């Protein structure tokens, strides 16, 4: 199968090559690895303030935006399912728009909205507070701008998954719980969410992977600034490896570490999905039978 060959060529050699590059010094003129330095590059990455900050920043952005995407996604999916089920395709498509828009356009969009002089948000706030807010000038606000951009783009995915999850719930189980007197938030927390457990986990995993790999908003909205405050790991790798000094080996080492972290997170989540998935299905089945 030619497909397997292409995929093998495109994944294995680059990965091995990254490992290879990461344990050498790299000659930037000749573009070849020169001197074997063991794990020196990894040691540099794990002790250097800038790279550690990039990892930390990426984790903060990822956790924040994953959490917010899940909350908004679930709320919107629930609202659509409860209050406008007949319009679902159209509503879903409208809510999906941010997701199918290029990250470049999203960043451009937010730069228009948050423009200090001409952006509508600052202009409206100015009427009330008479203060000019420079969104990308303090590390905290700049991080939140990145998170906002990420949440805006990645929530639609959560909406869609939760919506299809809600649609697939066994009606009998829900009815039975209603008859037994479960209502409101109790109902959501003890009935709906446990039944959706595997979908929640898949969504969290996916949102986290999306957020941790983000590059466009940090490059375009804040260019990593102020200073290096919002430099995500992808931006760090690009800058250190290619844009600034060309420390290819250092960047390759950072890439390998990022890869390992991602693989660990992904494995944990996938394992959880597998063990819990069964649980959810079993329960649903038992309830369904009890009711029918």
């Amino acid at each position, binding site marked *: 199968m030619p497909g397997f060959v292409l995929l093998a060529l*495109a994944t294995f050699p680059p*990965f091995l090559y990254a490992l290879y590059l990461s344990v050498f010094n790299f000659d930037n003129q000749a573009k070849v690895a020169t001197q074997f330095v063991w794990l020196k590059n990894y040691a540099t990455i794990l002790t250097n303030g800038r790279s550690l900050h990039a990892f930390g920043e990426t984790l903060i952005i990822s956790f924040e935006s994953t959490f917010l995407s899940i909350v908004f996604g679930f709320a919107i999916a629930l*609202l659509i399912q409860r209050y*406008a089920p007949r319009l679902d395709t159209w509503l879903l498509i409208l809510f999906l728009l941010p997701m199918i828009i290029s990250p470049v356009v999203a960043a451009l969009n937010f730069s228009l909205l948050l423009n200090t002089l001409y952006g509508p948000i600052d202009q*409206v706030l100015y009427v009330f507070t008479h203060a000019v807010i420079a969104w990308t000038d303090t590390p905290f606000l700049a991080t939140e701008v990145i998170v906002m951009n990420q949440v805006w783009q990645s929530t639609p995915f959560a909406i869609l998954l939760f919506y299809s999850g809600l649609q697939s719930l066994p009606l009998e189980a829900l009815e039975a719980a209603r008859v037994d007197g479960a209502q409101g938030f109790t109902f959501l927390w003890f009935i709906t969410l446990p039944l959706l457990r595997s979908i929640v986990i*898949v969504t969290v995993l996916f949102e986290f*992977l999306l957020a941790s790999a983000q590059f466009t908003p940090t490059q375009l909205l804040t260019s990593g600034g102020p200073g290096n405050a919002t430099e995500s790991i992808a931006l760090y790798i690009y800058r250190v490896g290619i844009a600034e000094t060309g420390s290819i080996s250092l960047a390759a080492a950072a890439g390998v570490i990022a890869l390992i972290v991602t693989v660990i997170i992904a494995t944990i989540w996938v394992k959880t999905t597998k063990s819990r998935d069964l649980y959810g299905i079993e329960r649903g089945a038992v309830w369904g039978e009890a009711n029918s």
Partner: protein
Amino acid sequence: MTARRLAGILSGRAALIVLMVVWLFPVYWLVLTAFKLKVDIESPEPVWFVVPVLDNFVWLQQNFAFDPLKHSLIVVFLSVGIATVLGAPMAYALARFPFKRRDDVEFWVISTRMLPPEALIIPYYVIMIHIHLINTITGLTIIYSAINLPVIVWILLAFYRMMPASTEEAARIDGCSLWSAYFRIVIPMSASSIVAAALIIWIMTWNEFFFSFVLTSSNTTLPVEVASFLANGFNPQYGPMAAAGLVLTIPPLLIAFFGRQYLIRGIQGLAGGEAR
């Protein structure tokens, strides 16, 4: 009871409408800015509605190079085509034929989809320099095909698993070869899923910024070209920038409105079959 229920429904719908307005406001602002005059864009008070003018698009037409658009179209169509043609049989083989270590192969294909792009960018960059494909459309097409391939396999794998095998088996018994059974029975039956998967990777590739930004400079694609407006810090051209952004958004928008069912299926497929 009924009055309370009505109030509940009304407040639920109101909440939905408010969320939708907030969610879509950035899109509205982009469209609005694209059709505004420069004075309205740079007015000290927000201008919420305008009579649309085409000045920004005229500016674009006069000052904007059209090569990136051409490159984008070539790269996107080529890489999506390659990924679809190679990926659909791959997914079928993984779903249907028991071969040695199939689970491992499947895990490998799917795990490549989760690789963080920043881990691959450095080796890709150095390799592309060595094989002289840096800053070329060919190099970008190869990379995109390789990125798209696992996505399409992943989406179609879930579908082929759910599809009953009896039809193809009947065809095989009646004397169809493996490939003709695939082309005559399986492809027509799975056409809508293939379209859904292809559309979703089409959009993803069309929007892709990171690899194109790093691996190409003069022969770049549309997203990178549009992004260069943002880098121009001192005299930002907000109007043309919004107009260019809108141009970049039009193809995904068309897909969203005319292929909405496919798109929804495709995105659900992205999460993997188990989520349905």
